[in-house]
């Protein structure tokens, strides 16, 4: 597993996402209310760029007529056929056992550790004072 420095935290404010390719893999990193998530940007269904889809909530029902709308902004809907994926786990809601997209752990690390640690960055000049978004791949 290699850790990759993605960006200084300020470059990925809440509500934004960043697309990149690491080791030939298309990846997207999301900042949702200050929490960071990383997903493989390829839908397991027919291969759409999954992370171009909107972030929605989860409509669930324990009984007909009773609908709860929860987890607003944590469910990613594929831009093609609308399959829904949990951004925390990569699991799909249409068939969670069979279909999932790869989720990658994303962390925020202080600049000092990024400079010292086993991180790999090509395009970023890492400065010690800031925090950085780091993904494990």
């Amino acid at each position, binding site marked *: 597993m*290699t850790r*990759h420095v993605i960006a200084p935290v300020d470059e990925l404010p809440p509500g934004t996402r960043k*697309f*990149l*390719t*690491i*080791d*030939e893999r*298309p*990846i997207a990193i999301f900042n949702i209310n200050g929490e960071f998530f990383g997903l493989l*940007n*390829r839908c397991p*269904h*027919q*291969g*759409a*760029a999954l992370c*171009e*889809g*909107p972030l929605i909530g989860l409509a669930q029902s324990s009984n007909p007529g009773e609908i709860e709308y929860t987890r607003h902004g944590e469910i990613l809907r594929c*831009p*093609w*056929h*609308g399959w829904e994926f949990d951004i925390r786990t990569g699991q799909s809601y249409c068939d969670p056992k069979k279909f999932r997209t790869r989720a990658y752990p994303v962390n925020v690390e202080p600049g000092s550790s990024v400079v010292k640690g086993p991180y*790999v*960055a*090509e*395009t970023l000049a890492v400065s010690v004072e800031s925090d950085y978004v780091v993904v494990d791949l």
Partner: protein
Amino acid sequence: MNVQFRDRPEPASSASVKTAIADCDIHPARATRDELYPFLARRWHGHLETFGVHAYQGMMEGPPYPKTQPNASRRDAWPPEGGQQGSSLSFMQKQHLDPNNVALGVLNPLGATGQGMRNHDLSAALATAINDWQIEKWTSKDSRLKASVVVANEDGMAAAAEIRKRAGDRNFVQVLLLSRNVEPLGQRRYWPIYQAAEEAGLPVGVHAFGFGGNPITASGWPSYYIEEMVGHSQCQQTALASLVLEGVFERHPKLKMIMIEAGFGWAPSLSWRLDKVFEKLHGEVPHLKRKPSEYLRDHIFWTTQPMEDPERRDHLFDVIDWIGWDKLLFATDYPHWDYDEPSRVLPAGVSDANREAFYLTNALKLYGIS
């Protein structure tokens, strides 16, 4: 420090050279409502602005769009220059035609194209306009694209006149009808359409949707879009039973029809049921000389989007074996949300010959393109 790290992924599809395909259901859209005005007599500009279009179906503002995604389209299909999904040729080329190596793309315009309108003069004028627009904006600019002759479907005579006007023009490869009409499609009011299509040597495509004024399902208006989606097969079954039993194929032995966007897994059971009742009730329809299934097998083609997707692929193959590998036409439905990705729809285990027929040669043959 040797990490591959690009800021934006390349579109996966451009990476490999793919074999050529025919896409028999592409939906071109107008960027703006007045894009058709240059092709419409002036009187209709004012008419449209004052009265709008008047469909048979109520709630015209409700049913068509949006569904599931804006304009019922892929969310990544907005053209960068603005306008509706499907309205930009250059973006369609870049996003779909080039990377998927589409050798033939059949255009099926939907929306306010003149089909299913109560004012038949407006209907005919819009149909002519949309046909001229298809040439001007699409087929003359990209030779891979071919148009459908859109007709004023509820006015058989006007529709036949439009078909005759386009006969022999190789910009057009089929006549386009929709599945929901005022009456089932075999009825006499539509016969002039089949007569003219047969004379012109054009197959007739029947695309799901339409505004015939009747509910979407056989027992009324459903609550959910998901019911409408499966309701398309009911409409097509009604259309097919009507076409066969009214004797349309007996009258027009050269006529070919294409069922577009309503699935095909139900085709065998419809045929079996028709044949079974026909054994007992053929006295009611003595004009039929053959079993219903024989007309269906000889005259009907099916586009693949939506493909049935059973858990066991041999179930799919059984259905296709029954229908015939020579009767399926590949379609993506671009740019709509239920789009099928060419490289992902057909399970493994298909012979090269069948694969090629499925993706390309059936369509080239049917549409007479060499």
